[in-house]
């Protein structure tokens, strides 16, 4: 049996455990006396140790083992949690993470021993007990402890008693007996929470094979390897070792809840015969239920046999019942994202087909009158919309998985920068598409580091300014219509606009004349230009000048945008807006000449009818004045090179779109209506500027291009 197939699950689980450990350590730092937290950490360390051991990652196992030891001492109140210990534990966590990364890349844990951390941990543990704790001893006491605690738990049945043996096997038993070997029956119960069941079973087998010989397993070894068993399996086993030794060997395998070991008495010839008969009896049973005339003799025989050994039969049936009554319940299924993409594509196709039916039915007089057809179409529409939503939901992941590493990061920064600060997070449950989640971590981390390093003043400055000594950083995520907003905010000094302005002139990014004409907002937007860092001192936390532009590019790549608001002395905030979905959107269909275009509804604010007379010119650019806002007009037909339509309307139809605070009016010839559209790529052969975000297929099979409002505005 090969454990490499479990590597993926190991990596996932280890990540979860490490995250859990990190969270708990953060809590422990605040509440060093909290027993629940200590227990939780102990458990997490223990599971990690077990998993690492299973996968054969010895160094990882050793490190977690030592962590576990330390917590064992804390649990038994031999020592107290001190900040020195927390620091070591965080370092141990980092080391574990390094192992994991190595494993993820090379499937091997590498050769870093982390001797120093191990030694520190050991000396802490040793100090607590006042003596050197030999590793082996610790292990045995521990496993013994586990054993006893498991014993006191739910009593397991000795299911091995119902194992049947064949004649051939019986001979082996006799031989073994003559050979002075002990014959044990063993039933191993795994913990309910155990996921790598087959791997655990494998380890049990491995442990046993070192001491003796496994004769028979129920379910069969093949089934156990394929994980076709409940939380327990039974074995018959020859060994020269004592019962206690065997039991200990099994229970030292982690996630084994209990091992019931007992002397197996070889049944005499008669019973072993009937036991061997059993498989034959079973297929006869259904026959017996058929018309009696068909095989009355066989049926009678079967009944007789059943009566002859009711006890055994009952046991077997009980076993069978248990098996059918308790099917393995998978709480979650891990699915390859590519499979979901395929599913998503199919849903898209379905929506296109549905749009096709809708458009033909509305075009056709006769079917429009056919109310039954319309009803069905409406039904179909609601089903496809729900289907789409469900598939989208499957792809959605809570943002928590990305942001939960940030508290730790801020903690480290607190130490590194010597600034007291706190991170407040909200909306961790906000969900985003999986593809977005994978990409959003780095930009967020960058923004947080920025806030911590440049945003917040030093503690002394804060006191002098009459602010709370501790700096506050906020990370808020929330859904806003079809977007998800993530806001990184601090209550620091805010951005000094004049400083940015001067810096920009100094760097030659803008001329002094340009600088005069620019609004504060435009100046702040300069921060997102490549190679623009205002930090006077470049630290290794942030400020290498490769920052915000990278953040911006990444977020725009995900179809989102970022803006910055700042208030001198009050702090600044960066707001990231991301689209909820990437594949299917609601859009407004418009006509330009004879061509059709789609404008994503998320970008649209209003649609206005503007008389020609209200179009003003500012610096040769067309603008309109709408509710006290001056909005530039964009003539789509000019930009897109569309052949002008024949009719000349007396007013302009203007679609007001926005990107952050910026607005623009897109002039279109005609509005068609709102529609759910499937975004398709137009491939990479065509170099058509960034104006076109993709294409979609309309109900009638025609193609409409999707306008990329973010590049237009």
């Amino acid at each position, binding site marked *: 049996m090969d454990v490499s197939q479990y590597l993926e699950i190991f990596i996932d689980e280890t990540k979860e455990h490490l995250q859990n450990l990190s969270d708990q350590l953060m809590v422990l730092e605040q509440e060093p006396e909290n027993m629940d937290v200590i227990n939780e950490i102990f458990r997490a360390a223990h599971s990690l140790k077990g998993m690492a051991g299973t996968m054969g990652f010895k160094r990882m196992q050793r490190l977690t083992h030592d962590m576990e030891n330390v917590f064992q001492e804390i649990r038994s109140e031999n020592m107290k949690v001190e900040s020195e210990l927390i620091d070591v534990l965080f370092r141990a966590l980092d080391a574990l993470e390094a192992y994991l990364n190595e494993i993820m890349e090379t499937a091997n844990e590498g050769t870093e021993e982390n001797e120093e951390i191990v030694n520190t941990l050991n000396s802490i543990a040793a100090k607590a007990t006042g003596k050197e704790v030999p590793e082996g001893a610790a292990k045995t006491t521990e496993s013994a402890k586990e054993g006893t605690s498991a014993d006191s738990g739910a009593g397991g049945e000795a299911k091995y008693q119902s194992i049947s043996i064949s004649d051939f096997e019986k001979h082996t038993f006799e031989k073994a007996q003559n050979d002075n070997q002990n014959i044990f029956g063993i039933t191993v119960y795994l913990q309910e929470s155990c996921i790598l069941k087959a791997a655990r079973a494998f380890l049990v087998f491995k442990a046993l094979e070192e001491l003796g010989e496994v004769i028979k397993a129920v379910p069969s070894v093949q089934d156990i390897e394929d994980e076709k068993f409940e939380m327990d399996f039974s074995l018959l086993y020859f060994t020269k070792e004592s019962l206690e030794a065997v039991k200990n060997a099994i229970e030292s395998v982690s996630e084994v809840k209990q091992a019931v070991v007992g002397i197996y008495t070889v049944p005499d010839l008669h019973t072993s015969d009937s036991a061997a008969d059993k498989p034959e009896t079973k297929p006869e049973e259904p026959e017996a239920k058929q018309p009696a005339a068909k095989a009355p003799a066989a049926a009678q025989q079967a009944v007789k046999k059943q009566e002859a050994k009711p006890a055994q039969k009952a046991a077997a049936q009980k076993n069978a019942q248990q098996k059918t009554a308790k099917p393995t319940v998978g709480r979650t299924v891990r699915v390859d994202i590519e499979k979901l993409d395929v599913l998503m594509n199919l849903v898209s196709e379905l929506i296109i087909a549905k749009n096709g039916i809708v458009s033909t039915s509305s075009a056709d007089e006769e079917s429009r009158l056919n109310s039954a057809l319309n009803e069905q179409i409406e039904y179909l529409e609601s089903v496809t919309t729900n289907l789409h939503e469900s598939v989208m939901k499957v792809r959605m992941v809570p943002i928590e998985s990305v942001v939960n590493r940030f508290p730790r990061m801020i903690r480290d920064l607190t130490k590194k920068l010597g600034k007291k600060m706190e991170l407040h997070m909200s909306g961790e449950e906000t969900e985003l598409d999986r593809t977005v989640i994978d990409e959003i971590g780095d930009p967020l981390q960058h923004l947080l580091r920025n806030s911590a390093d440049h945003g917040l003043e030093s503690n002394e400055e804060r006191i002098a300014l009459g602010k709370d000594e501790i700096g506050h950083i906020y990370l808020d995520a929330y859904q806003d219509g079809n977007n998800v907003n993530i806001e990184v905010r601090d209550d620091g000094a805010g951005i000094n606009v004049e400083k940015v302005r001067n810096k920009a002139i100094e760097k030659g990014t803008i001329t002094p004349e340009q600088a005069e004409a620019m609004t504060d907002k435009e100046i702040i937007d300069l921060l997102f230009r490549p190679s623009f860092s205002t930090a006077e001192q470049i630290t290794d936390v942030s400020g290498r000048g490769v920052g915000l532009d990278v953040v911006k590019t990444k977020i725009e790549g995900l179809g989102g945008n970022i803006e910055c608001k700042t208030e001198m002395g009050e702090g600044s905030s960066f707001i990231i807006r991301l689209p909820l979905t990437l594949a299917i959107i609601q859009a407004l269909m418009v006509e330009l000449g004879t061509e059709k275009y789609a404008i994503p509804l998320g970008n649209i604010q209003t649609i206005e009818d503007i008389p020609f007379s209200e179009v003003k010119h500012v610096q040769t650019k067309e603008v309109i004045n709408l509710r006290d806002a001056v909005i530039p007009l964009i003539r789509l037909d000019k930009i897109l090179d569309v052949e002008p339509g024949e009719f000349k309307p007396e007013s302009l139809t203007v679609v007001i779109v926005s990107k952050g605070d910026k607005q623009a009016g897109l002039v279109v010839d005609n509005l068609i209506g709102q529609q759910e559209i499937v975004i398709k790529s*137009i491939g990479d052969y*065509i*170099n058509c500027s960034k104006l*076109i975000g993709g294409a979609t297929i309309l109900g009638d*099979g025609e*193609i409409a291009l999707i306008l990329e409002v973010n590049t237009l505005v």
Partner: protein
Amino acid sequence: MDDINDVQNVEVASEGKQYIVVHLGSEQYGIDIKYIDNIVRMSKITRIPMSQKYFKGVINLRGEIIPVMSLRLKFDLAPDEYTNATRIIIIKLESQSAIGIIVDEVKEVVTLDEASIEKPNSADANDIRMQYLSGVGKHVDGLITLLNISSVINDKEKEMI
């Protein structure tokens, strides 16, 4: 077999390759059949603004959006005049997405063995159009210009706007 070895850059196939012969104006071009995914009739092409001028736009091929280029514009010939015989040949190169090319007419499938294919003369290499050719095939109906389809669709020259 000796004469095959005389030809430079011998291709692996000795049985000969199948080419689809298409018409473009008065010339015949051959496209290696293994790259051809489909041949479809002319359908409505949606223009893509600001694209390379030889790209006519995109078509909807059974729910897939496929970019379509005009071979005539690519080869600096007179613009296409769509007739009943006009076809779009859907090309699928390994590991690349599909692309359509417009031709005046699809004529036939021919099998050419190595002996009847003349490799392009290296002296002509300066001619821009030469890089699109993989050779000239001799057939009963006359000469067939064999297209190097990969270089036709993956244009490296700076024709971009």
